[in-house]
């Protein structure tokens, strides 16, 4: 998977900027112990770095010092080589996207107004702002025409969070800070939002610093994971693979938790697996032709795509009636190609096809992953893990992969998330 990431990066120009923290400390007034104690750190341009740690470890304080919501007691922070104190604080913040839990949308402003705040502060003209809003809504998978004039309370939690991400991206900032961005939504929605963030990042290559308390989220999203302990002392700062395979100390070991070799399941992305390519059809195709193509391929069902190659549905052949293919009723849950195998298993279990549709950038169709491919892969990993265990016994290796599979509660996201 690392090879794939590197080719990715070559294809795209990195628009992010490097962030460096140098000997940064924060002591809150009236407190003895520093909340953040002399942290030095470099966040490479164009990467996602996940700050993870128990509550009170100083991860949020560290994050908020980057956009100066909290001023450090000592030390310097620079973005793109420039000290953040060189600019006026409000101007600095306009160049840093900020996304917090639940989206934190302003309830008295429409979706479009919420997104256009920073562009307007920066003096963009009206038509440019309007185009940008539509572009961003499209990017986060919301139909602009349908959602731009809605108010936050008319959106589901997941939709609000998407708008929150769009708002953070609005003025195309090189750096985006996220504070528990997906903490307020249910597990299935969270998984989809994570997938979307990865897909957006594949396209934009921002520098993203994201705070979470969830090690699984950190491993899934991060190019690097920063594990912090009390006082924002760095327990480990490395790629997810290294964090999982060789925790730097007991704290990191405990935090990553038992069964780390199995946790690597969540490192395996769908992109690492071979996708099946069943029969596809476009809306408007002749039903008879599609049917004969499917029968020739030996498929009992077809995947219907829209004019931008985004999957709309996965009907069985018997469901194809009428002369032309029409947009199927009922919604499809797709998986982003960066989704983990855990996610894939979750999604397949709610699908009737024993498989799941995989999408890439901007929800474009890539193929189908089926149950057997995943289980074969898991078995292989399991064998690897066992050989590893024999070499160096690790806790939790007796855990069966099936115990990782869980059905998360569903919400309106299942039918409302991807309209349009």
């Amino acid at each position: 998977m690392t090879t794939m990431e590197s080719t990715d990066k070559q294809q795209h120009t990195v628009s992010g900027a490097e962030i460096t923290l140098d000997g940064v400390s924060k002591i809150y007034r009236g407190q003895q112990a520093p909340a953040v104690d002399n942290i030095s750190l470099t966040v490479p341009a164009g990467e996602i770095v996940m700050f993870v740690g128990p509550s009170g470890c100083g991860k949020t304080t560290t994050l908020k010092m980057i956009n100066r919501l909290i001023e450090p007691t000592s030390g310097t922070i620079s973005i793109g080589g420039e000290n953040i104190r060189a600019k006026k604080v409000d101007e600095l913040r306009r160049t840093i996207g900020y996304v917090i839990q639940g989206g934190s949308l302003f309830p008295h402003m429409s979706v479009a107004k919420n997104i256009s705040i920073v562009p307007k502060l920066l003096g963009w003209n009206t038509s440019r702002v309007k185009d940008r809003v539509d572009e961003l809504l499209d990017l986060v998978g919301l139909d602009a025409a349908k959602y731009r004039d809605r108010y936050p309370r008319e959106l589901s939690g997941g939709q609000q969070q998407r708008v929150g991400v769009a708002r953070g991206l609005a003025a195309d900032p090189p750096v985006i800070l996220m504070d528990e961005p997906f903490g307020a939504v249910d597990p299935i929605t969270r998984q989809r939002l994570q997938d979307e963030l990865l897909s957006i990042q594949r396209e934009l290559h921002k520098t993203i610093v994201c705070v979470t308390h969830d090690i699984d989220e950190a491993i899934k999203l991060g190019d690097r994971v920063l594990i912090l302990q009390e006082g924002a002392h760095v327990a480990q700062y490395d790629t997810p693979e290294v964090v999982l395979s060789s925790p730097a100390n007991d704290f990191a070991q405990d935090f990553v938790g038992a069964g780390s070799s199995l946790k690597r399941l969540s490192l395996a992305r769908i992109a690492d697996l071979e996708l099946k390519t069943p029969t596809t059809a476009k809306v408007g195709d002749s039903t008879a032709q599609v049917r004969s193509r499917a029968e020739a391929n030996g498929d009992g069902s077809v995947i219907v795509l829209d004019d931008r190659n985004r999957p709309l549905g996965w009907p069985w052949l018997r469901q194809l009636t009428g002369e032309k293919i029409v947009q199927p009723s009922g919604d499809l849950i797709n998986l982003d190609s960066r989704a983990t195998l855990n996610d894939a298993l979750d999604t397949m279990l709610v699908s009737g096809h024993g498989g799941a549709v995989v999408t890439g950038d901007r929800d474009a169709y890539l193929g189908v992953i089926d149950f057997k491919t995943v289980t074969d892969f898991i078995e292989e990993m399991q064998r690897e893990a066992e050989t590893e265990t024999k070499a160096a016994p690790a806790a939790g290796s007796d855990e069966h992969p099936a115990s990782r599979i869980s059905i998360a509660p569903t919400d309106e996201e299942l039918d409302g998330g991807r309209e349009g």
Partner: protein
Amino acid sequence: MWDFVVDRREQLLINAWNHAYLVILAVLFATVIAVVLAVVVTRLPKVEPVANAVSAAGLTIPSFALIGLLLPVTGLGDVTALVAVTFYAVLPILRNAIVGLQGVEPGLVESARGMGMSEPMTLLRIKLPLAWPVILSGIRVSLQMSMGVAAIAAYVLGPGLGAWIFQGLTQVGGKNAVNYALSATIGIVLLALILDLALLLVGRLTTSKGVRV
């Protein structure tokens, strides 16, 4: 009664207009004063209990007593009426503005600041619009209360419908005494209803659809 009103309709309308004018002006002043005070108070947490205590004590002072206290300073007439009505009008708005501003979710304020909104901008574009429905309900209470205070202020020659109540009182036993007092009282009730409706309308027009109840 009907003939009485028809005969004096011009004076009645002038009085009603003056009454409304006094109350609206006082409530406008009061809104500005109360919102400014509330902004100050919510920024200085230590002052807040004091502000609440003062506003509770202020509401306790009978308006007739306040008018008596003001008279040596502001004299008979419009100014005393305006100051007295404004004083009472400030208190409910202040209380609600404090509650409303405090009710703004801290995460939203942090978001606004984090996006690069300056502090005054955050106040004007985030905090006040979000607190507005609560402030507005304080204004409605103020408005109703001010109608009655304005009537009493007529005793010290303040403008408005209250004058006829006192005129009726001085003519007790005369044939028009009841007519004067009754038409003025009903006039004030009607005016209160009309202004309340008008305020509801203003409220609807000035409250974002996203936070409307």
